[in-house]
């Protein structure tokens, strides 16, 4: 299974990659919104864990792009510092769940296990 990890902090991506590898994912990293869109053009991911606010593009932009591909959305977990965008709105868009930063990794992993494995 392939996962895309999007965060401008490389550390976050690395930590998540190790944990997801343990669960059998192979992972790509993106540090900006545009990089994430570029990777999504080339690959199909079963899981996307992404910051909502990123330099050069936001999480909403990413969903808009994925929808424009006309495929089913993968499981999307958004990470956020604050809920500037109402949570319900995001869920309506098809987001699996929204987790607040700082990331609680245990919570995130159990969410992945629950929904994908």
């Amino acid at each position, binding site marked *: 299974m392939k996962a895309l990890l999007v965060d401008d902090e490389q*550390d976050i991506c690395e*930590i998540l990659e190790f944990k997801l590898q343990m669960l059998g994912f192979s992972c790509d990293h993106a540090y900006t919104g545009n990089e994430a869109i570029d990777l999504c053009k080339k690959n199909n991911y079963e899981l996307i864990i992404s910051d909502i606010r990123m330099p050069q593009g936001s999480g909403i932009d990413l969903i808009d792009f994925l929808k424009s591909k006309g495929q089913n959305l993968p499981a999307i977990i958004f990470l956020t510092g604050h809920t500037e965008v109402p949570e319900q709105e995001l869920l309506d868009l098809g987001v699996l769940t929204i987790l607040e930063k700082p990331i609680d990794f245990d919570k995130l992993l159990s969410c992945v296990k629950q929904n994908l494995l």
Partner: protein
Amino acid sequence: MAYTKFIHQEDLGKTIDAISQLPELKEINNFEIRYLTKDGNVKYMSWNAMYNETDGLMYGYAKDITKTKENEYFLLKSSQLAKIGGWKFNVTTKQLDWADETYKIHEISKDEGISISKALTYYSKPHKKIIFKIFRDCFKGHSFSVNLKIHMKNSERYKWVRINGEPQFFNNKLRFIQGTYQDINDEMINKIKLIESEERYRFALEASNDFIWDWDIATNKVYFSEQLAKSLGYSVSEFDQNFFLEIMYPGDKDKMISKVYEYLDGKSEFEIEFRLKSSGGSYRWFRSKGKALFDHDSKPFRMSGSFADITNIKNKESQLKSALESAVAYQFALNKVSIVISVDCDGKIDSVNDQFTKTTGYTIDDIKGENIYFIFGKAYKKTVVDKIWSSLKQGVTWEGTLKNKTKDDRDFWVDMYAVPLTQAVDNICYMFIAHDKTNEVQIMEELEEERIKTLQSSKLAAIGEMAGGIAHEINNPLAIIHGYASNMKTMIENNDIESSKILVNKIVNTTDRIAKIVKSLKTFSRSSEHDIFQKVDFIEVMNDTLTFCYEKLKRNNIDLNIEKPSDSCMVLCRQVEVAQVFLNLVNNACDALEHADQKLLNIKIKYLKNNELMVSVIDTGSGIDHTIKDKVLNPFFTTKEIGKGTGLGLSISKKIIDSHNGVLNFKSKPGHTEFYFTLPRAVGLDELDGSFE
């Protein structure tokens, strides 16, 4: 008693000889002999004696010739001293005869003989002409007296001689011309020297401010230096003694005349000060000194002296007098309001006034003779006093504010002037004048405390607005550490030690990130009370402050752009206060961009030409409405929703920048609002490091 007892010892022999020869010679005339008088003096007698063969007796009579003899003796002596020789010219035979002394004067031997032509070789051509002329006059019966120069043979020397001559007529016919010949070289040389020195004196006087006057009492003519007339603006020709008295200040005239008489009567020195009116109408002051020459009957015949123009001195005197009078008044006033300390030339306290005691608690008895360090109280700083002392020794007044402790340990402040006197008075070389400003300082301190409190609360308000960001900046790395640590645990359980080692380093780096944020926070929230002016790199201040802002920028999707000089930007400032200003401006800009279409925050840092650093915080928000532009910097004015701003940020920021001698202002139009402030650059201000309270 024997007659011979009275005869002078030296004349006794010739007297006895004469007496024994008298019977043979029958008569002796004009026999001169010296006798001793009863009081021990010598008398000259001239004897005429006869021998009478008929009765065998000697008859004689004598006359006292003491006076004549003395005169002769003096004449001889004086002619020897005066080197007077004689000469005689026989008009008939053209024969010239010289006396011994005349030969001596010419420095030749009598054996060489003399003739008219030989004698004339001693004179220069012009002097020969003079001789011919006076001889022609002499032929007509005129006697003469002339001073001439004779040139010595075989040397370059010459001598001044005085020749007196008188024609001798016999039967109405000129037979001889004869007279005296005198060496007057020394006299002439002295006279020439005198003239030269008088001339030099006159030159010297003319070069100086002094003028000379010379009064011939017999003719009542007064000579004045031409410079006197010129200096007063008159023509030299009109300036005589009458004019002199005319332009003299009326009150000085009688004084002058009576002073002259007093002097001539020998009652006093002649020294007088008087005023002369210049051609411009103003009076100038002169001081004159003089001396008179008196003849044998003690009658003055000539008086001369000098004038000095002392107008400037007089003016200075009167200025000094009024200065002294006002100085006394000042001293009185000064004593009433200020601390006055006089210090002797060795740096020991000589006296203090009541104000000193009132402020410090010390009386003169406590500190008289103490070293000057004591002036500064028991808590003086040696470096400061040394600075003052060295300034004084260089003759430079020192001024500054000093803080110290009174005798009973209370704080006091004075503004002090330490003044070196240009001239020591009664061995006092230095004056310290101080103004007690303890009350002033206490009020200022209270105000400052208030100010700091306000600053502190407004700063906390500013930081509160960033609180969420700060928490995020700490929590994020904490989560990372937590993540890495949990991964590491898994790695260790799987015995993947190499991979876990890499994570240890990552954890360490991430804790540094937290440490840095905490440090910035600590710096920022430090109390302003101990925030002193110091050299600071503004770039560091900016970076520290932005740490609190990144989260807010990110949350609002605000792009940040910074333009700054490539090197450090040293400014002289209170670091925390300036950080507070910067944070306020960034905070406001973020708020202004919250609903903007384009969200760009521009920070520009550049040097201005006048040695200031300018910091601009520019946002692309909608701009400040022109109706509220005047109020933006007022306290408690805010456009933010309730609970978001205190309305104090900008007004306090402006106050802070004012206190840094900088400017805080703004310009705004839609899409471009720029708040900027300036700070003095810290260049060449190193000496301030050593400043004191």
